[in-house]
């Protein structure tokens, strides 16, 4: 029931209502009796029509009519006049029902069903629709039916597009019309219909059309999403593309086996490798793709004998992923020590890598790096370490400068050699710049949230255009300021703007080696296993969201403590990560740790002082693999026995079990979370046999 006032009924109303109820009840029972006995007399059908007029949502009542129509049609011997009168009667009943209730699914479907029986009066349908749509221009049933009728009569998309223009012209505040326009225009653009190619011809006019809506009443949302869609149409590149990799293009990697290099040993990757004995090779695309395998990715190197196996880094076990990894197994390589091997990875030369929206990898590209193994791999020796890993400020020292040879990459580096560099056309860039000017003008007249938000998005888009690579990030300060303003202007959506703000900030930090430098530290007096690491310290930046991970694939030690992170989505791409500090954030559940399951090198994890255990609703549950979403097999019976043996509740502990059993941690800090009681600590010790330190306490 919608929009009915709560007032108590007066006595006479109550009486009238109960009379009405009695009448309806009798219609219902007569109808059901007729239905069950398959009685399709004129009288029975009239009663049914009356019932539907009062209550058009009765499926069963419409079904009855369909049965009746089928029986009449089979008796009609296909006499056109008879058929027409049978179907006309149905259309009349539907029309009456719709006049009573516009939003009845059953009535609209009955009409479609009648048309599918060969009723030909389609022009009449459009006339009827025009009347209905004038009375309620946002009725989505009517719009759906309109699309159905238009398809049935093969009405050209161009004509329907014109119709949306008329509707918008009469009143721009009609989201339904803007929506339908986006559908029609997508079709026309996709099939490059005459006058709709190249898309630039069309987009300029569309921008103008939607300005009328937004600039007339900036608070009316009708044009907002259409405008955002137009920006996306202008700048987006459909084809999948490699945006970064590890090792990066042009890098020289020196592997030290399981010994680490003291002193100035920052030019090497060490320590992670002895843990697993493998070197991850990571391909990071601009969107999720499938079909990355040894036939679509060609790896050429003297070093390799067989093919590499590519795996999607997907937290929900999908075959579609933005990031793919293959592990080069150092242990089984027959190498000449100290020799430099070239590894060349090329992709896009043959088809097979496809985006989830069906686009082929478009631009053949190559990543080349050099690899030198200086010491043979031997199994790591268990080391007794005197103290747990510390994240205290005093233990870290900033770098004065970064040497060229240090394996740190940032956004300004060449990601790969691309045979044909994809660019958006000059006209598209012009369109974006024009939009920026338009919205600056709007903001000079009126301080509105959609103006600021759109300007921030446009500036972000222009910063990301391939051709503006050189002066990338020039607008960052302004964008950050706009999001700051928005947080004040529209506090209801505060965290939306804050998340966006965090993404921009991270883009700025990771944009170049110079911008990264202030955040790169090394550890003073580090225990041997962690000496020589670059530690990226992004703590205390008020980050509510992680981003720019494509620029952080090189990171082995990461400090994200004292931020406001609710999720670490995307962190699964950081395959070199061995030490991670997430303390003092807002992680609210174990499932929020899902990405860590894919980090095979992770040894040291600090998740102390988060909110794990304080929320009854889990917002990450369906974003990670789980038996509830059929993305993970779980041997419940076995787990229940295990849970029983250590005296914990199976229903509460299955999620932490799924997360922690796949980690190989030596150190874990979990204190300061509501869940972390003694019971839970003893559970962790059982599930993590590799653990040596728990909450800074030596377990050995």
């Amino acid at each position, binding site marked *: 029931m919608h929009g009915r006032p709560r007032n108590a009924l007066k006595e006479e109303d109550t009486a009238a209502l109960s009379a009405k109820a009695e009448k309806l009840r009798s219609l219902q029972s007569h109808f059901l009796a007729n239905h069950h006995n398959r009685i399709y007399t004129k009288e029975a059908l009239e009663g049914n029509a009356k019932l539907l007029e009062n209550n058009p949502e009765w499926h*069963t009542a419409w079904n009855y009519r369909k049965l009746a129509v089928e029986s009449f049609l089979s008796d009609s011997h296909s006499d056109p006049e008879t058929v027409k009168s049978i179907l006309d009667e149905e259309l009349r009943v539907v029309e009456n029902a719709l006049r009573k209730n516009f939003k009845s699914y059953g009535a609209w479907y009955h009409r479609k069903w009648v048309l599918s029986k060969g009723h030909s009066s389609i022009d009449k349908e459009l006339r009827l629709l025009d009347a209905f749509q004038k009375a309620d221009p946002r009725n989505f049933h009517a719009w759906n039916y309109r699309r159905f009728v238009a398809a049935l009569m093969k009405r050209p998309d161009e004509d329907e597009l014109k119709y949306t223009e008329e509707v918008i012209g009469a009143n721009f505040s009609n*989201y339904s019309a803007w929506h339908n326009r986006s559908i029609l225009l997508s079709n026309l653009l996709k099939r490059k219909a005459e006058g709709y190619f190249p898309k630039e011809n069309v987009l300029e006019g569309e921008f103008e059309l939607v300005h009328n809506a937004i600039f007339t009443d900036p608070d009316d949302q009708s044009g907002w999403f259409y405008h955002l869609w137009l920006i996306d149409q202008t700048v987006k590149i459909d084809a999948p593309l490699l945006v970064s990799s590890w090792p990066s293009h042009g890098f020289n990697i020196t592997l030290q086996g399981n010994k680490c290099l003291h002193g100035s040993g920052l030019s090497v990757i060490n320590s992670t490798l002895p843990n697993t004995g493998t070197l991850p090779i990571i391909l990071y695309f601009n969107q999720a793709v499938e079909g990355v395998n040894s036939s679509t990715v060609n790896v050429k190197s003297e070093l390799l004998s067989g093919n590499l196996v590519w795996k999607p880094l997907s937290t929900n076990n999908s075959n579609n992923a933005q990031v793919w990894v293959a592990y080069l197994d150092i242990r089984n390589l027959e190498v000449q020590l100290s020799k430099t091997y070239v590894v060349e990875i090329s992709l896009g030369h043959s088809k097979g890598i496809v985006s*989830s929206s069906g686009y082929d990898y478009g631009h053949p590209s190559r990543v080349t790096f050099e690899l030198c193994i200086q010491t043979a791999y031997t199994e790591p020796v268990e080391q007794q370490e005197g103290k747990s890993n510390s994240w205290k400020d005093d233990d870290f020292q900033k770098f004065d400068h970064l040497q060229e040879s240090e394996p740190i990459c940032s956004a300004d580096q060449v990601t790969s050699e691309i045979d044909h560099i994809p660019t958006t056309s000059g006209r598209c860039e012009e369109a974006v710049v024009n939009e920026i000017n338009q919205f600056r003008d709007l903001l000079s007249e009126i301080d509105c949230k959609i103006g600021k938000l759109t300007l921030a998005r446009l500036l972000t888009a222009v910063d990301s255009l391939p051709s503006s690579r050189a002066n990338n990030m020039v607008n960052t300060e302004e964008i950050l300021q706009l999001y700051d303003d928005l947080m004040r202007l529209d506090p209801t959506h505060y965290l939306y703007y804050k998340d966006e703000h965090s993404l921009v900030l991270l883009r700025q930090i990771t944009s170049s080696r110079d911008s990264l430098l202030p955040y790169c530290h090394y550890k003073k007096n580090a225990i041997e296993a962690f000496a020589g690491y670059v530690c990226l310290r992004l703590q205390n930046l008020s980050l509510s969201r992680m981003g720019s991970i494509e620029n952080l694939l090189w990171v082995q030690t990461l400090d994200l403590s004292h931020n406001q992170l609710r999720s670490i989505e995307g962190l699964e791409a950081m395959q070199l990560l061995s030490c991670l500090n997430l303390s003092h954030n807002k992680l609210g559940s174990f499932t929020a740790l899902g990405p860590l399951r894919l980090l095979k090198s992770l040894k040291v994890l600090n998740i102390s002082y988060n909110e794990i255990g304080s929320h009854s609703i889990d917002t990450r549950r369906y974003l990670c693999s789980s038996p509830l979403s059929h993305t993970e097999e779980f041997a419940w019976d076995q787990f229940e026995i295990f849970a029983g043996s250590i005296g914990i509740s*199976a229903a509460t502990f299955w999620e932490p079990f799924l997360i922690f059993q796949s980690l190989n941690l030596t150190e874990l800090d979990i204190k300061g979370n509501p869940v972390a009681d003694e019971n839970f600590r003893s559970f962790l010790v059982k599930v993590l046999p590799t653990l040596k330190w728990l909450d800074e306490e030596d377990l050995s």
Partner: protein
Amino acid sequence: MGELVTDKHVKYILSVEKRKDDFESVVMEHLRMNGAYWGLTALDLMGKLDVVDVNEVVSWVMSCQHDSGGFGGNVGHDPHILYTLSAVQVLALFDKMDLIDADKVTNYIVGLQNEDGSFSGDMWGEVDTRFSYIAICCLSIIHRLDKINVEKAVKYIISCKNMDGGFGCTPGGESHAGQIFCCVGALALTGSLDLVNKDLLGWWLCERQVKSGGLNGRPEKLPDVCYSWWVLSSLIMIDRVHWISREKLIKFILDCQDKEKGGISDRPDDAVDVFHTYFGVAGLSLLEYPGLKPIDPAYALPVDVVNRIFFKK
């Protein structure tokens, strides 16, 4: 704004269950099965399911099942997938899953999948992404999801994705919060949320919150308590619920209570009904309102019931 008047809502729901002859009950006759699910789930979330006569409800539910395996909205009404899910959910609430002939229900649902992966609501062929969700949710509860072509089902849902990141009834249909819940829910249950543009959809969804704190179902529409469920559960499944103001929404829902007679309405001072009472209570549960059991955003059942379905020997 006051508090949730739990006792009064319980009383209200029970009174509706008993009334059979007033106008409202007669009008709701055809979807009594949905009504049972709304009322009983709301009771369970408020911790009061035990006041119901289990056997009476369960035997009534079973009497609505047809030979085809599908359930009708009431005794003697035609089967439809809409009521089949409600029936299965009600049986799950009461831990009476053993009464369901899972193969029979499965056959009914499997028979409704079309070549393009979509689902019809019943034998008459109306297609809608609501039915995709229902089919997937229902089969998942009875552990038979592998009996349909999940890949095609997902593909069809994705073909209904719009420029705003939302979903419509059929390809080309306008985004609508109820429809988005169905599509996002179906994708959640099949582990396919990676196919959703979470930032774009999240922005559309969070902009459903209007000044009063309530949520609407489409741009430029009035807020309504039922969207506290459709919008909120979708935002939770894609982990973007922090983009709206929790406090404002709680206040809006509480303002829609009939504090004297119990029940919750679509907007403050409108007439209450079971549908909005359920969605109000379920919305508050999603907002972690104290004293309510948590509800699962995808299965639309209390979390402990979902755990029982999946983690029981």
